């Protein structure tokens, strides 16, 4: 009798344990998300699409989609006080993105922009993708704050997208972050067809004047004036722009080498790991997998295409006002989105397809870094209007 009681106790324990396993709590959503995570890891390793982002995000998706029983075990990223939840606070409260911007500032050379300042305007034009996606999202019945958070995907700037969505639409942040980073990784797939479609063979062969040498003083002045001009106009962009220009001054001042190296090395690496992993883990199927997320993915792709097209078309328009010899190759128009330096690399590759001697990389870096500033400014404006 006593033995029976002991066995039923063991059996009960075993049954109880089984209810806690991932197998018992598995849903179709978890399987879908695990497959998405594996696909990201595959893309990163096989095709080297943004591996520094896709590996942490892909693995984060696996971590976030291990099924578990919601019994207060403090394992899920959405459980207040769990380890993952604490790490996720940098995303939720938006302090990882400015630190990433600090690192980006410390590794960005703005010489191309300073030597040919008209390329700054290309970076502005490409931001149209953000607002086109905003309008389409409104048509799809998203609220203005949600539409703005979705539209920012078109800026091709992961940290900015996370920053803005954490402020305007925290419930959509997981989907927005995943979409933003995925499309940044897919820049080599999305942009070239649009660039080819919108340019003719004559335009693709335009050779631009080589950029002049930029003095150290100009490089030092740039982050200071850049900060003052942009943030006086859009103070809500201060966290991103402030850190971007601060990082750049650390780099260019020439007297803070150690700080600059930390910002562009260990610091940005640590934050990238934490950001990628927690953004990935935030895609817990129970919270993430719905029609809204799918719509966000669709809109994100569309905004990327529109941003690329806007950049290319703006260059073509701009060329109408430029004299022969000063014209801009429209193949650098795609670089107005702020996927640095991927979209500039795309300009270079596509340019070389048509002329083996036409190196567009340095020219494309101008609008590319202007795009970083432009998307931060756009995020600041949206935040100012809609928060």
């Amino acid at each position: 009798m006593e033995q029976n009681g002991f066995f039923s106790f063991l059996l009960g324990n075993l049954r109880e344990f089984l209810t806690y396993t991932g197998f018992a709590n598995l849903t179709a959503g978890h399987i879908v998300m695990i497959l998405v995570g594996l696909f990201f890891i595959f893309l990163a390793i096989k095709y080297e699409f943004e591996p520094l982002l896709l590996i942490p995000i892909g693995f984060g998706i696996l971590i976030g989609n291990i099924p578990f029983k919601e019994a207060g075990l403090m394992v899920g990223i959405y459980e207040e006080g769990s380890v993952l939840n604490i790490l996720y606070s940098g995303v939720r409260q938006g302090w990882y993105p400015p630190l990433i911007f600090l690192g980006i500032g410390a590794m960005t050379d703005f010489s191309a922009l300073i030597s040919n300042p008209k390329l700054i305007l290309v970076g502005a034009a490409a931001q149209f993708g953000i607002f086109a996606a905003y309008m389409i999202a409104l048509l799809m019945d998203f609220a203005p704050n949600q539409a703005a958070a979705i539209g920012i995907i078109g800026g091709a700037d992961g940290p900015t997208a996370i920053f803005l969505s954490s402020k305007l639409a925290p419930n959509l942040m997981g989907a927005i972050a995943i979409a933003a980073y995925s499309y940044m990784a897919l820049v080599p797939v999305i942009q070239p067809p649009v660039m080819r479609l919108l340019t003719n063979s004559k335009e693709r062969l335009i050779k631009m004047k080589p950029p002049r040498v930029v003095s150290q003083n100009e490089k030092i002045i740039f982050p200071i004036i850049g900060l003052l001009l942009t943030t006086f106009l859009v103070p809500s962009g201060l966290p991103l722009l402030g850190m971007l220009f601060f990082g750049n001054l650390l780099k260019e001042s020439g007297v803070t080498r150690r700080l600059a190296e930390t910002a562009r090395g260990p610091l940005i690496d640590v934050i990238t790991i934490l950001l990628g992993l927690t953004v990935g883990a935030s895609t817990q199927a129970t919270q993430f997998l719905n029609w809204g997320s799918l719509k966000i993915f669709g809109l994100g792709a569309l905004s990327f295409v529109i941003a690329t097209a806007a950049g290319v078309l703006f260059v073509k328009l701009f060329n109408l006002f430029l004299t022969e010899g000063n014209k801009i190759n429209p193949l650098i128009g795609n670089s107005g989105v702020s996927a640095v330096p991927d979209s500039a690399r795309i300009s270079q590759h596509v340019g070389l397809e048509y002329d083996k001697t036409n190196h567009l990389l340095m020219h494309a870096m101008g609008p590319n870094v202007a795009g970083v500033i432009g998307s931060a400014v756009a995020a600041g404006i949206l935040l100012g209007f809609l928060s």
Partner: protein
Amino acid sequence: MNKIMKSILKVMSAAVLLIAAVQANAQDAVKLRINEIMLNNESNYTDEFGKRSAWVEIFNPSYATVNIAGCYLTDDPNNPTKYFIQKGDVLTQIKPRQHVVFFMDKTPDHGTFHTNFTAEKRYVALFDANGKTLIDELTIPEMDVDVSYGRLVDGGPDLGVLPNTTPSTNNLAPDTNVANERFMANDRTGIGMSITAMTVVFLALALLFMVFLYVGKFYVSSAKKRAIKSAEAAGEEIPASLDVESGEVYAAIAMALYEYQNDIHDLEHTILTIEKISRAYSPWSSKIYGLRQLPQLKK
């Protein structure tokens, strides 16, 4: 001269620190506002002892926590330091956009939030920690029982009888996202937002463009002037073209120097191969390369 400059810098730094300190202080309690007052409390808010009395609500309109401890509440403008808000109570920290309520029941021994005066004078003022700076004051008209008077919107300038009594919470609680509603009502398609925002983006980047267009021109012309000056000083002929070379030229020169200094060649002098070569003679089998000194023919 150097000493003078250093002194000036020191004075300027001290001034900046002083201004910053003053500013930091000014950002504290001076932003607080007397937000809502109830004079005749018969069936409304009770204190922690279950008693009802007149109360005054203070609102922190800033986005930083403000500590009200050390400030003074009074019902007499001639006696600004009548009730000292004691330090050491954690509840005197008012979180951003939050409220605290003081009961005007003349029982300060009941705790920090019980003043030593009543509301019979229908006047309440909040003074800063120096006891002189008036932060906010309110004179209340005659009121019905259980009706409160205050700012129609938290921290706002308009005063009046409030439709609901809202101790320790917002006087006007928005039940919708105001910004969203505004944009949905006036800009349903998003065209307005797109035009405005794109204009600002272009403006911000066009400003940068203008500034660096002229900064660039200035630096290019100064570089030319320096080149002319140094050529004149050295008695050399001024070069016909003083255009600043492109970065590509300098990069090519730097690369050539680097390769020269590191003995790197596009084409190496010799080729090391495991393939069988056609000629029978090879430097590898030549005795001449195995000798430390060239043999000298003695005649």
